[in-house]
């Protein structure tokens, strides 16, 4: 109801300070988190538009379904482990403890790197069996969507590497707490996106 209250307020009637002694944001969250959530919405729009295009293009007669390599299941497992490790790091960082923090946080990133390496291997095995990017729209979409997902992951790894360096050079947990929290959120998001993309690619 507060939203309704907000948009029906009559600003010309009410004078004086509204709110507490300090300025308050619309959301009780750090600006970084708000910006990340907005970005996740933008990324969701990008992936949904690709999905819509995929579905529309799939119905045209020249579509030959691509048999997804079983290696993708293995890669999916790597990404799940990565996400779990990030969640572990997140739980540790809520306290000021450092125990297992390096293992979980750095491990999470390493498994994400392994996932990307796995995706690259899938690409090269597909190439070796003659599934080129331009030979069929199903292949084109496969390379495009997996590539785009990996690119998003690389963006996350850039932030991860900065925080890892800070942790490794003896930074305190509270310095990277926000970074770990946001990385975890981003990783879960990319895991969900990957599962949806994988499901869509498999169901043709």
């Amino acid at each position, binding site marked *: 109801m507060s939203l309704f209250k907000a948009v029906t307020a009559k600003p010309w009637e009410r004078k004086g300070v509204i709110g507490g002694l*300090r*300025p308050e944001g619309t959301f009780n969250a750090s600006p970084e988190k708000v910006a990340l959530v907005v970005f996740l919405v933008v990324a969701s729009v990008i992936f949904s*538009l690709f999905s819509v*295009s995929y579905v529309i293009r799939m119905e045209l007669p020249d579509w030959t379904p691509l048999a997804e390599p079983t290696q993708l299941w293995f890669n999916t497992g790597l990404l799940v482990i990565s996400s779990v490790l990030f969640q572990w790091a997140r739980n540790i960082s809520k306290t000021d403890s450092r125990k297992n923090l390096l293992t979980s946080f750095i491990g999470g990133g390493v498994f994400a790197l392994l996932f990307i390496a796995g995706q690259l291997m899938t690409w090269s095995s597909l190439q070796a069996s003659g599934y080129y990017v*331009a030979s069929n*729209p199903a292949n084109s979409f496969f390379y495009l969507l997996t590539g785009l997902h990996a690119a998003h992951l690389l963006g996350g790894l850039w932030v991860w590497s900065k925080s890892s360096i800070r942790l490794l050079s003896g930074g305190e947990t509270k310095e990277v707490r926000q970074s770990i929290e946001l990385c975890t959120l981003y990783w879960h998001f990319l895991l969900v996106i990957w599962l949806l993309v994988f499901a869509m690619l498999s169901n043709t």
Partner: protein
Amino acid sequence: MAYVPLADQDKDMELHHPHSWVTKYVWSQDHKVIAIQYGGTAIAVGLVALVLSMLMRMQLGYPESFDLIDPNAYYQAVTMHGMIMVVYLLTALFLGGFGNYLIPLMVGARDMVFPFLNMLSYWVYLLSVLILMASFFVGGGPTGAGWTLYPPQTAMEGTPGHDMGIVLMLVSLVVFIVAFTMGGLNYVTTVLQYRCRGLTMMRLPLSVWGIFVATVLGLFAFPALLVAGIMMTFDTLLGTSFFMPAVIEAGTALDYDGGSPLLFQHLFWFFGHPEVYIVALPAFGLVSDVISTHARKNIFGYRMMVWAIIAIGGLSFIVWAHHMYVSGMHPYFGFFFATTTLIIAVPTALKVYNWVLTLWEGDIRLNAPMYFAIGFIFTFVHGGLTGLFLGNVVIDLPLSDTYFVVAHFHMVMGVSPVLVLFAAIYHWFPKMSGRMFHEGLAKAHFWCTFLGAYLIYLPMHYLGFLGVPRRYYSLGTTDFIPASAQDLNQVITLAALFVGAAQILFFINIFWSLRNGKKADPNPWGSASLEWQTPDTPPVHGNWGDELPTVYRWAYDYSVPGAHQDFIPMNTPESTEPTAGEDHFDPDHDTSKADL
């Protein structure tokens, strides 16, 4: 994570406080410098687009008189003019320029939330402009596929720039979208999280509302262009067939097979229609503030204005296929889009009524910004009314490929936003530069631009009804077009050259005033909103001196009965509100009552 209070901004401010000329004016993280960088770049690239339109008009008015302009050059000029004006000038100037300048000042913040990202946004934008400009210098020149870049013709031999030009265009757009997203995240987060004490969303000036909602639209709509652009780049460079159908070029079949050009059109217009409002909504916001300030009257129906901005923003995502009536579609599909398109006229008309009602019985000061603002109401109503014609499928079909459409969209999203831009530049120039502009020169600039624009676009409606097709390089001799159409074309060309040349008045005024203008009062228009209450003019880095402002009222306390001035700034506490003698006091407007 708890909310980080604004007090922490001071600490951040120290971190990127400029220490040399280079960090102050080149690699600056100050939103005001970035705004001016954005604005300067956008205007510079806009001038290129203006020159291109002059070349087009010269060809249309005096065909076969200029060797310089062959059919290829003409189509390249059409394409680049359209794309530059819509994306690289208007979007960048409204959001990158005015968004950057006004948001932190109007919400009472020291800077954007992420100043470094903000700086990066500008430099990436500049990169996208440079990539686009590079296409003028590559073999084959820039793409001539029309600003809509419809496949398959973008990639066909007969289209100029089908090899390098189109690739540079697509890459430039993708880079632009990256820049916009960085800026957009900043604008949205700043408006949501960095408003000063007492400033609720419903107390925000309409400029901020317009820019905020337009940014949200941009964040949702540009992805469609990104998706289309990436897939088109794949089609062009890697030979995929996302959009490219099986096609025969000069007798040989190309390697493409089975792609869907219609899919591209849907994606393009899913971006393209909200893009109209990405340009229009900031204009609506800015013009509301200019009108209210110079009419010395609160904006009529503030809440309705906010709701209308939000409603227009929402509706703009479900009207895109009205650009595709001529592509062929199921009649019910067309019916749906015609209906939604006409519904969007409701909140838009509401805004127009409210601007007019704000003027009603106002104490109007006819300053130069007000000239442009009132001029905008005229051009926007005219452009909007022809939109009602074109929103209907049966009327759109015969008119779609004629000059009627050219006249319509130039009135509604060319002339109208540009008039607002001039209104806004003149209105905020004293705050930005600390100097006043030359009033007489600005008014001369207005009359030349306003009357000239009508001289250009009114006859185009008539040409459209005659059936004169748009996009044609030269009309040649056709039975259904009377010879007099050519005379009209010459008149339009002369008017266009005149309006183009008249913009020199604007540049003379700005550059002359920067050095020689009268020193500006901190608040020369007597404006109530926050950006005019800064301790320094122009505001220095950090904007607010030692203490951030506190807001006690909305942005439109003009001509409040009983107050001794005809405006009360947002940061004036209600207790110290200066009142005139009790005999002027009107109990119906007792503003202190509501605070109980």
